[in-house]
């Protein structure tokens, strides 16, 4: 059983499992949306005193922070007990494309070139990772949700705003991937 779980999970298993998470949260009386936690953390840090967006009772989101804590633990469990040790099966075309922009595929989940000690100890590396995070955080709150809130919860509820957001996610993603990444790395 553990050996089976250690294999990379096929997409349909993961898709069904993610939908199950959303449905579970609905039956707990909650709505699946991860980026709300970023707002909650700002509130806990005291941002509510200066900025209206953060002036709310963060305890109503305690459940979501616990979900966040669980997701970190999930990462620990996956890395500690469920690592197959096999390299990622990335498509050959992607490996080739990334090589052209100077990123070597190393078989891990994330490239050491971007998340390894060398890059993150350089001012440029810190700047790029901070910038990426700022775009994600700013964009998620501006659009009122991220992949979980819009692409999963929103589309499941046939929300046009969520469809527009997903179009936006891809517009930004394609521009970054095809035009900006070659300039950044």
């Amino acid at each position, binding site marked *: 059983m553990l050996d089976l779980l250690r294999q990379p999970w096929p*997409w349909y*298993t*993961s*898709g*069904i*499992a*993610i939908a199950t998470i959303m*449905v579970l949260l*609905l*039956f*707990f*009386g909650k709505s699946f949306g991860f*980026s709300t936690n*970023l707002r909650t953390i*700002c509130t806990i840090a005291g941002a509510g005193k200066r*900025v209206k967006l953060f002036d709310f009772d963060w305890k109503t989101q305690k459940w*979501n922070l*616990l*979900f*966040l*804590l*669980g*997701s*970190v*633990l*999930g*990462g620990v*469990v996956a*890395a500690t007990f469920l690592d197959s040790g096999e390299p990622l099966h990335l498509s050959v075309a*992607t490996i080739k*494309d*990334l090589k052209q922009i100077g990123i070597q*595929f190393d078989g891990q*989940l*994330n490239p050491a070139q*971007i998340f390894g000690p060398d890059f993150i100890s350089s001012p440029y590396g810190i700047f790029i990772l901070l*910038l*990426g*995070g*700022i*775009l*994600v*955080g*700013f964009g*998620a*709150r*501006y659009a*009122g949700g*991220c*992949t979980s809130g*819009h692409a*999963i919860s929103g589309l*499941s509820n*046939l929300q046009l705003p969520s469809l527009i957001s997903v179009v*936006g*996610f*891809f517009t*930004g*993603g*394609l521009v970054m991937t095809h035009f900006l990444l070659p300039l950044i790395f």
Partner: protein
Amino acid sequence: MKGIKFIITGLIFGVIMAKSEAISWYRIQEMFRFQSFHMYGIIGTAVVIGLIAVYVIKKFKLKDTQGDQIIFHDKDKSWARYLIGGSIFGLGWALTGACPGPMFVNIGYGYWAMGIVVLGALMGTYLYGVIKNKLPH
């Protein structure tokens, strides 16, 4: 303890994200280059099952574990905030290979560098709160 079920649900979520490789920078690149069905399969399956589940919940007016009817809120009707905000989000998603959930799963997985991305995401969230009223919505 009432909160434990959320920790366990989050833990399962984290394991799914890691084992389906949805937390992988490489997989996100593959998706934005249309070179694999993998990520589309994950999101597509989740949405199809989600659609059916939401339909059933609404149709039979199902109740949550506290006995209250499950209600769905419609998102505010607009397009500017979704298209502009979504595009800004997409730029960051493709750059870091992580949306907010996977950032935290990655930290658990041992990618400490994602802590910098999370710090950035908090800064971005705060910045939005500060200039919110000056932006088209």
